[in-house]
């Protein structure tokens, strides 16, 4: 089994930051993959399991927080890309529907 690691960076684009509904969407996205996905809040130095609602809730990431997405596993690239996409989309809470991807 080929184990790969994928890393993506994304900035929280929605005004309300990572609260319950975004957490739910991230969990839904991460759960589609076998890879372990974690999200690091570079500002706070905290790291959360992207498949854990309660962990993501405590990530404390308001608008503008830079997040590092780390996926490990055979489908790591797909998982990281998908989670990045969900965060960058602004969870449907953006007025223009877009997010900023770095």
């Amino acid at each position: 089994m080929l184990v790969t690691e994928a890393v993506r960076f994304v900035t929280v684009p929605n005004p309300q930051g990572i609260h319950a509904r975004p957490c739910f969407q991230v969990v839904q996205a991460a759960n589609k993959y076998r890879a372990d996905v974690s999200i690091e809040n570079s500002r706070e130095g905290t790291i959360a399991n992207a498949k854990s609602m309660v962990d993501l809730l405590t990530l404390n990431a308001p608008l503008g927080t830079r997040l590092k997405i780390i996926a490990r596993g055979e489908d790591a690239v797909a998982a990281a890309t998908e989670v990045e996409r969900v965060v960058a989309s602004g969870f449907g809470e953006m007025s223009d529907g877009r997010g900023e991807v770095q």
Partner: protein
Amino acid sequence: MIVLKGQRVSDGVAIGQCTVLSQSDVKVKEGYVTRERIEAEVRRFKKALKETEEDIRRLRDAQSSDLSDVRAIIDTHLSLLQDPNILGSIESHIRNQLYTAPYAVAQSIAYFAGRLKSIDNPMVSSKVADLYDVERRLLDHMLGGQIVQLAKLSRPLIIVGDDLTPTQAATLDRKNVLGFATERGSWASHTAILARALGIPAVVGVPGISQNVAVGATIIIDGFKGELIVDPDNATLQRYYKLRRQAKRKHTGDHVSKALKSETRDGETCELYGNIETKADIPRVIEFGGMGVGLFRTEFLFLGRQEPPDEEEQYEEYRQAAEMVGEGTLTIRSMDFGGDKFDKRVGELGEPNPFMGERAIRVSLKRRDLFRTQLRAILRAAVRGNVRLMFPMVMDVGEFRRVRACVDEAREELRKAHVKHAEKIALGTMVELPSAALNASRLADEVDFFSIGTNDLTQFCLGVDRTNHRVSSLFAPFHPAVARLIREVTRAAWRRQKSVTVCGEMAGDAFCAPLLLGLGVRGFSCSPPHIPGIKRTIRSVYLARCLDLAEHALRADDAQAVRELLETFASH
């Protein structure tokens, strides 16, 4: 019968059987298992987990699609139930610490709840409630407790519990909930918000409710008082059936018809009168729905002229006024000169402090000729209608007796001269001096009625001349001390079954009306255009709540505190 007191958050009366929700902060007993029992305990937890998930999925399927908020709550709960960190923590507590499944759940949830609470973002920390909701469901399954199916009640019930969880509030079977009574909660809790939205009574923050209420007990929720009555006796039940009927009467909208009674929502009737200065004002009193004249300020007959009006002229004025009022009452106040409407020909000029000088009944008792003429005219007019006579600035019982002696004298003269006059006329006193208010119980033995002049009463009570702009901001008729004086009067009057009307400006201020009602006032006399507003206010309030308001006002620190009470009252 037990009466429990809580916070009043939603008005109304509910009577019915109750169902008791399981407690969220059930203290799960610390418990350990032997190593041989570990696998069984993990299975016990997983079984409860599966059942809880099924519960929530059923709840989701039962929801109509338009309730997106409810969906979001349910989604959150499902994710928490599938959260690998939470599940891992619980299982690890069982396997490594040998905790019983319930204890492992309680310990894990407590840990994650603590983490959520520490987040400085209400959108996150508020999710603690959801975490507890999930915990409660898990524990209910493991401990064999019954989850009350709030989403589907078999019959109308009163819900008793700790506090509603967000799911419970959102998915409640609204048709079948009569009211709420909860141990915790506040004005802003789920339970309170929901109760107000549904228009059903609720009392929250009732300490000891779970110890005192058993499932199926008969309960009365008095939403007006913020009380809960468990196992009420028959008399109490009957009383509340009546109150509930009255409370259900529909509040009419903005239009206040003359035909509508001026009664509170719980059926307390009030009398509304107009204040007039000449008989020409009477049609307006009737037009605005007043049932008569509560204050006829006769001094205006005297002002601005060279000679005081003679007996015939006054008689004509009073007679016509009495006839115009018709079935209603005409309350004539003897001349009140002095103070702000001083007539130089009658009193003395140059008083340094005219409000506290020779005015009102003090002038009448000194100028007996003027007083005698007025009394004769009033006694004669009184045969033409329902006339009452009252006196301004009466200080005490002795003074009232001297005034009454003058009335007797005038009557005697009329009798001797064979002039038609009223043998009986209701005699009352204004209460404008704190001395009169404080002597109200003695005065109540002598007078037929009281009329409280709040403008003077306030300025004498607080020592504030409201015409003096340097201190006029201190003038506050709803000051707790003024309220106390008013209540002295109403109490004395009620004890002797004498009527009390308020005829100061306060009586025309809809903002103050609930306070006056609560203080025991049932008669309001104000300028005619204010009558509909007062009636509207009276019709929109419950006396029970006004009583509560008054109790708080009497204990308030200052006028500002009472103002805040009144504002809070008005905004609910």
